[in-house]
């Protein structure tokens, strides 16, 4: 799986996929998509990097990447945003919407071009879920890749 064609294509394609994934995550409250879909797209970029490289290089590439920490961070961030609502409302209340805080702008009613600075907690949750999903999916594929490559050498 590591011919020159695949390597070159990956080098060109992977950054584009990563950027596209980030776009989907950030615009989750305006366009189709959201945290899960964007995280999956982002993870597929990283997975492309995994499958297109030999085992040693992958191990070096991902040795320092704190995937577990990222995943816990995403999950804890979600929980934290939920607990934010406990201050005066309920768990998971959209407390930031229309508050003027970051992402707290007001959405005009009806059809509109879409403004990024809206969505309240939705935008934060999109980002946290995106982080979580990209870390989770990447670590699943990574562990399968590492285990199976290692065992193929042993068998």
């Amino acid at each position, binding site marked *: 799986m590591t011919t020159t064609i695949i390597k070159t294509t990956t080098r060109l394609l992977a950054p584009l996929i990563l950027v596209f994934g980030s776009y989907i995550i950030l615009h989750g409250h305006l366009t189709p998509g*959201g945290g899960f879909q964007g995280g999956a797209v982002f993870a597929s970029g990283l997975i492309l990097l995994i499958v297109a490289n030999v085992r040693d290089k992958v191990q070096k590439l991902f040795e320092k990447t704190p995937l577990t920490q990222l995943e816990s961070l995403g999950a804890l961030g979600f929980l934290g945003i939920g607990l934010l609502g406990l201050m005066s409302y309920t768990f998971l209340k959209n407390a930031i919407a229309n508050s003027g805080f970051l992402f707290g702008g007001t959405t005009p009613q009806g059809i509109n071009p879409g403004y990024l600075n809206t969505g309240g907690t939705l935008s934060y949750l999109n980002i946290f879920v995106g982080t979580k999903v990209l870390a989770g999916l990447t670590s699943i594929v990574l562990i399968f890749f590492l285990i199976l490559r290692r065992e193929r050498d042993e068998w």
Partner: protein
Amino acid sequence: MRKALGLFAFLAFVLFLFAATISLRPFGEPPHAEMDSYFIEHAQEEASANNVVTSVVFDYRGFDTLGEATVLFTAVSGVLMALRHYGGKEK
């Protein structure tokens, strides 16, 4: 014997499902849409989002999404645990 029993269960199930789908309401004409029309009308004002589906996923049914993120977390923990290295243990 086992195969025959399985086939019987399988056929019964298929009939069951066909009954479910044929006598269900017609496709494309939901009879009750009070909840969904609430979402479509109020998503922009309450959740401040143009994308109604996202507002449902993260605001109106946000707790489901927490559960969903937890499921993914569970599966990642489970996969990492199942495929962890077991050096020195009996095979």
